């Protein structure tokens, strides 16, 4: 990495998590970029199994370039707890989410895959492309739906559609899935 960018912050965070065997996975735009058509992002989202302990570990391990925010926040759709760490030099945000008890959250975390990243210099854990689609349709924010389209366009022939259909039916989001799929 030559210029400073968010990958520098993520690489440091992932290195700490890997070194301490903390179960986690990358979520949000990093995961949809991995499987779809990459877009610009100013933050990295991670899901961890134990947020309190992990946040303390991260806070004590990262250097003075990082600022932890004390405010705890709750995602409005699933109620997931979020904590925020800022990489001050370039104002890049690391968002850490608690894995919740929800059946789908548990399922996608169990199914996560490890991939080696030479850019980050670390092995990182990612959700499967099917789980990225189901989760992003569940959120259904405008950017999420564009991300879903892009993942579908790139991964179309390899996706397990019965798995995606099953969860979207349970979440009441199957119509959205069908609309996006039929528009491609």
């Amino acid at each position, binding site marked *: 990495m030559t*210029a400073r*960018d*968010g*990958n520098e912050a*993520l690489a440091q965070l992932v290195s700490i998590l890997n070194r301490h065997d903390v179960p986690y996975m*990358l979520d949000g*735009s*990093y995961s949809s*970029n*991995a*499987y*779809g058509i*990459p*877009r*610009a*992002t*100013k933050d990295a989202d991670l899901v961890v199994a134990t947020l309190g302990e992990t946040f303390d570990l991260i806070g004590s391990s990262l250097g003075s370039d990082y600022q932890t925010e004390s*405010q*705890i*926040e*709750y*995602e*409005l*759709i699933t*109620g997931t707890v*979020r904590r925020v760490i800022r990489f001050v030099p*370039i*104002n*890049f*945000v690391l968002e850490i989410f608690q894995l919740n008890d929800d059946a789908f959250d548990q399922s996608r975390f169990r199914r996560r895959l490890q*991939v*080696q*990243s*030479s*850019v*980050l210099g670390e092995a*990182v854990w*990612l959700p499967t492309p099917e789980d990225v689609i189901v989760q992003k349709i569940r959120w259904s*924010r405008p950017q999420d739906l564009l991300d879903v389209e892009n993942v579908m366009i790139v991964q179309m022939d390899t996706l397990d559609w019965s798995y995606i259909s099953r969860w979207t039916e349970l979440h009441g989001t199957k119509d959205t899935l069908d609309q996006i799929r039929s528009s491609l």
Partner: protein
Amino acid sequence: MLLDERLTAGPQLCAEQMRLVRSRVAGLHPGWTDEQVDSEMFRREELIRQRNSKKYYSTSPPAERETANPS
């Protein structure tokens, strides 16, 4: 494009986007110093972030929100 390249492309694309926006802001305010342009960029980013935070997150736990808004 390899998975690793796609995975890590977001912040690099963002850096390029920010460079273009910064150039635009500097062009609109030719008398500004680099520090003033940086400060304006930071202010805009924070506005976007706060707007998204308010839209999609709450500082109250879900149970408290349900009690406060029973409908």
